[in-house]
């Protein structure tokens, strides 16, 4: 493979190093769709509910367009070689989420029980904050490898974030899960931010320890068993997950962190044994906790027999919720093509209809077709994340990218699977579409980091001709 061509001609010899088009115009074109589609959906909801184009259409369209435009300009300036799909996909999801949240705001039922009414303007504000954070990440994080320096600070930070909801006076128990903290009139879900900070810690830690974890092992029954002392970190993370589950009764977050760690550990060491251990330990942990934690048991009961849970709740037997069954009815009533935006009755879910259960509204009003499209959009975001990990040239970037995309995929699976009755419900929200500031802001930061890594990965190597040896090294790297 020759790479001694001079810089003025086309380079075709190395992958991802030279000559990659920046794709910024592709991104811009896609962004136009990502803004126009939600604007049409917004008009659609208004026509269906009030028989008129909503008065806020122009400001909403301009607002979303402006946010997306600013984000695009910043990407163009500060991360010109970034993946062109991530920003439009996130914008589209965020825009559609806003439309559905506004649609649920119109529900008289939800207004009367104070579950909605003015959620959409707040969500728009959160979106602005999220995109501001996204921009800040791109401007101030010139190279993601800088984050490597903060490995252990990240660990401390993540632990603090995770434990905050347990601090008396700060934490709040909302519908059985203690995952919120209150600051003034705002409630924040620190778990959403902890997800990113933990990924940074894991990536930094595993990059240093991967050789020790991978090589120092004994072979037993076809599996590479790690040495006892190397088992330490996985045990610690496992234990923290269990603690979260027990004290914050949050099955989803605990599954998410542990799953993310196992994925990153596997990628770092290439040892299948870690996955086996991971599955075993999460199984033991989940069953063990479920055997004495009533909140978790109740979620499992509601998953196994949602109709019974519904009936009990209708009879006024305390502690039971009709939500799971209501969500299933919403999906079923939507059918293949859905009832049409604004024409469903997903407000019957009542509590958390626009946050944890927002997917049910998508299901009822956009139908099977809409949910499949939505899931594929999420799948595409994960795919772009994994592709970024593959293209990244440094192990830290690879680990961070796969950690963040894996966590994103797990979160989508856990939330969507929970709402659709595939697995027990957990207290997490659909990234970007669900109402909730923490989730939107944190996920914009996540996409910001992925874009930063992908920019670094796709950026042409500086002055390749002046240092051919360096480039050779890159070419032979697996």
């Amino acid at each position: 493979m020759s790479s001694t061509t001079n810089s003025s001609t086309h380079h075709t010899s190395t992958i991802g190093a030279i000559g990659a088009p920046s794709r910024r115009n592709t991104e811009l074109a896609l962004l136009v769709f990502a803004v126009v589609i939600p604007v049409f959906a917004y008009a659609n909801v208004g026509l269906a509910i009030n028989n008129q184009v909503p008065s806020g259409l122009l400001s909403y369209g301009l607002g979303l367009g402006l946010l997306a435009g600013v984000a695009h300009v910043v990407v163009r300036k500060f991360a010109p070689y970034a993946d062109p799909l991530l920003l439009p996909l996130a914008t589209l999801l965020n825009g559609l989420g806003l439309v559905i949240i506004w649609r649920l705001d119109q529900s008289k039922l939800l207004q009367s029980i104070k579950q909605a009414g003015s959620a959409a303007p707040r969500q728009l504000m959160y979106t602005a904050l999220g995109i501001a954070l996204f921009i800040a990440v791109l401007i101030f994080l010139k190279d993601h490898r800088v984050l490597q320096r903060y490995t252990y600070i990240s660990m401390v930070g993540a632990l603090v974030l995770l434990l905050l909801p347990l601090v008396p006076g700060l934490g709040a128990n909302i519908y059985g899960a203690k995952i919120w903290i209150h600051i003034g009139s705002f409630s924040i879900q620190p778990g959403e931010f902890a997800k990113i900070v933990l990924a940074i810690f894991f990536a930094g830690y595993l990059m240093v320890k991967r050789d020790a974890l991978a090589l120092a092992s004994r072979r037993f029954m076809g599996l590479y068993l790690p040495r006892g002392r190397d088992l330490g970190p996985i045990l610690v993370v496992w234990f923290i997950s269990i603690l979260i589950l027990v004290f914050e009764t949050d099955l989803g977050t605990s599954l998410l962190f542990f799953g993310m760690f196992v994925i990153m550990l596997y990628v770092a060491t290439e040892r299948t044994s870690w996955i086996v251990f991971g599955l075993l330990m999460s199984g033991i942990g989940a069953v063990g906790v479920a055997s004495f934690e009533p909140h978790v048991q109740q979620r499992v009961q509601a998953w196994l027999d949602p109709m019974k849970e519904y009936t009990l709740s209708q009879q006024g037997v305390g502690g039971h919720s009709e939500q799971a069954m209501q969500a299933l009815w919403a999906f079923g009533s939507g059918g293949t093509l859905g009832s049409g935006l604004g024409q469903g009755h997903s407000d019957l879910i009542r509590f958390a209809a626009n946050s944890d259960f927002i997917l049910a509204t998508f299901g009822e009003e956009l139908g099977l077709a809409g949910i499949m499209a939505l899931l594929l959009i999420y799948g595409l975001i994960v795919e772009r994340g994994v592709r970024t990990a593959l293209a990244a040239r440094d192990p830290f970037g690879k680990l961070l990218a796969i950690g963040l995309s894996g966590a994103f995929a797990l979160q989508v699976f856990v939330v969507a699977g929970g709402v659709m009755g595939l697995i027990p419900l957990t207290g997490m929200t659909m990234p970007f579409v669900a109402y909730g500031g923490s989730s939107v802001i944190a996920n914009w930061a996540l996409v910001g980091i992925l874009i930063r890594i992908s920019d670094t990965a796709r950026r042409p190597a500086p002055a390749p001709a002046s240092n051919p040896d360096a480039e050779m090294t890159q070419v032979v790297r697996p």
Partner: protein
Amino acid sequence: MNKPLRRIAIFCGLLVLTLLMRDNWLQYLKADSLKNDNKNRRVTIARYSTPRGDIIVGGNPITGSTETKRNGLNDLKYKRTYKDGPMWAPVTGYASQAFGANQLESLDDGILTGNDDRLFFRNTLDMVTGKPKQGGNVVTTLNPAAQKAAFDGLRHSGGKGAAVALDPSTGKILALASYPSYDPSSFAGASSSDADAWKKLQKADDSADPMLNRALRETYPPGSTFKVVTAAAALENGLYGSADQQTNSPLPYTLPDTRTELKNEGNIPCKNATMRVALQYSCNTVFGKIGADLGKDKMLAEAKKFGFDSEQFTPVRSAASNFPKEMNRPSTALSSIGQFETAATPLQMAMVASAVANDGKLMKPYMVDKLQSPNLDTLEQTDPQELSRPLSSQNAQVLQSMMETVVKDGTGKNAQIPNATVGGKTGTAQHGVANSANPYAWFISYAKMPDGSSPVAVAVVVEDENANRDDISGGGLAAPIAKNVMEAVINSKK
């Protein structure tokens, strides 16, 4: 590091694929059952989203819809109303926002809401043209004058009871009244006053059980009216050649295999009486002996031909009347005079009278004439259907002449109608422990016009806990109601 990365990519793909499969299962395979689940609130919302179609009697709707006063929590737009609700409740049933629907309101819900598949094309057209969905109508066979006569008669009698009138030649239900009744309008909504009204109507709060449809769902010992079935069995099995052949029955009559005497009501000429005389005076001894002589199998076979032991779907389901299957000889004798475990719905006894009046042909009783689309096209028409032939036309005419004697000269004189021949049979059924409770007063009858046609057959039962025991006899309490119902039908034909 790239090999595990690719595997993780596959794993993430599988996660998404799993979700896609689950969604297809949920929104494609299970969609219909979830969508139409009765507990799914959307079913109720759809039911009341547009004015419901109407239930029609004699060309006029007896139901209506009114817009609900709406607040944040009430998501139902229209509410059902009823005209003369208590009178028609045994026919319409109820459709309540809070308490669901039953009877015709539930059985023909698809037509009434407009969701029926047969209205699909029309609905699609309406959707395209932007017209709101409309419900179709249910046209019943009932006769408003006969229904009013039946309901008013029961109300004035003061007791609990029921009346059923049939058109013998077709099986059309002309009247179906039950008393005490309820007004389905009173709990059609979802407010707290609706809930109160509903609660007050439940058996727990009202021992009279006004929501029980006595005409279809309550079985009573039919008493002497069952002797018509026993007489039919005797004729069909050739036990006696004619109505006027002496039956060779003793008085007093001792139940077979026992030392218990079967008593008659009063001192009546039952010794060796003919069947005509025995029916005229309602001789327990004669018909008890006939039952015992025929045996339980032949009696059961005849009772079944009249419709005993099976539910009727009018389409509203009726309870199955009962003729005991396993019993000894004395019990067979008692069952043959409508006591022991014999029990019949008022509908069943009206079917007995109608089969006799229709020359032995029993027509399937029905109350829905046709289902109409919103623009009054007929979607489904019910055709009269023969259910069975409990007796030959010859024997039927013999039995008719016997029943006509009952009204002309016997216990049923109160049912005579000028310009029509009436055949009937009274009944006074004992019940309660050691027959201590007040008996049920029964009357079954039919009217025949001079041209030989028979426009109506009726069964009336009155259970009266307040009346003087001596006053209760089918002839005194029930026959006048039957007469008014028959007259109402005859007059409405003119």
